């Protein structure tokens, strides 16, 4: 795989936790950004990225190659990761 999957999450959100747990359980190496814990400047930049990718500010967002998955969706994750 070219790039590691990337997860945009909120540290307090149970659905984001489930997505991270799912990836961990499947031993997927991924980059994770807890957007709510970032400094203001960095946060603005990341939120802009998320909005550009998804058109909204909803979490989790998982980027796998060209796939953008919004929300905790194990079927979509499995398909995108070919599990």
């Amino acid at each position: 795989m070219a790039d590691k999957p990337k997860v945009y999450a909120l540290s307090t959100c149970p659905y984001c936790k489930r997505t991270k747990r799912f990836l961990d359980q499947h031993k997927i190496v991924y980059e994770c950004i807890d957007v709510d814990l970032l400094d203001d400047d960095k946060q603005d930049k990341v939120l802009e990225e998320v909005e550009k990718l998804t058109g909204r500010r909803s979490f989790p967002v998982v980027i796998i190659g060209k796939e953008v998955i919004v929300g905790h969706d194990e079927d979509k994750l499995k398909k995108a990761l070919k599990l």
Partner: protein
Amino acid sequence: MSDAKAERVYCPVCLAKFKFEAGWKEGSIVICPICGQKLRLARSADGWVGDRVDKGTEKEIRERSENFARLRGYEFSDIKEELIEGLLGKHKRFGDFYCPCRMEHVPEYQCPCKPTRGGDVEKNGRCYCGFFWKKT
């Protein structure tokens, strides 16, 4: 007939006013009928206000959400405890019980958030984060 004039109580959680009921007095403990918050009545220069009982504690957010669900006839999902944990995390990091699934830490997203108080559960069957659900 100033006694007959309908007085109102300001709730600092939902930032709205509700009717002052007969028999209430300074120090009475009441439940906000809009958001379910337990309040201690106090008089201020602007009229009656409710002070949050157990402010900032796990007890406060648990009671508030239980009261809100009971008042509206909603039920909780199976991830209730995870959402409570998220709400406590929001309080710890951002100072109040904001929706655990939202980025914005503003008064209207204090749980139960404004869209939920405004009827999102009736419309969508659940609130934004899935804490409150319409009974099936």
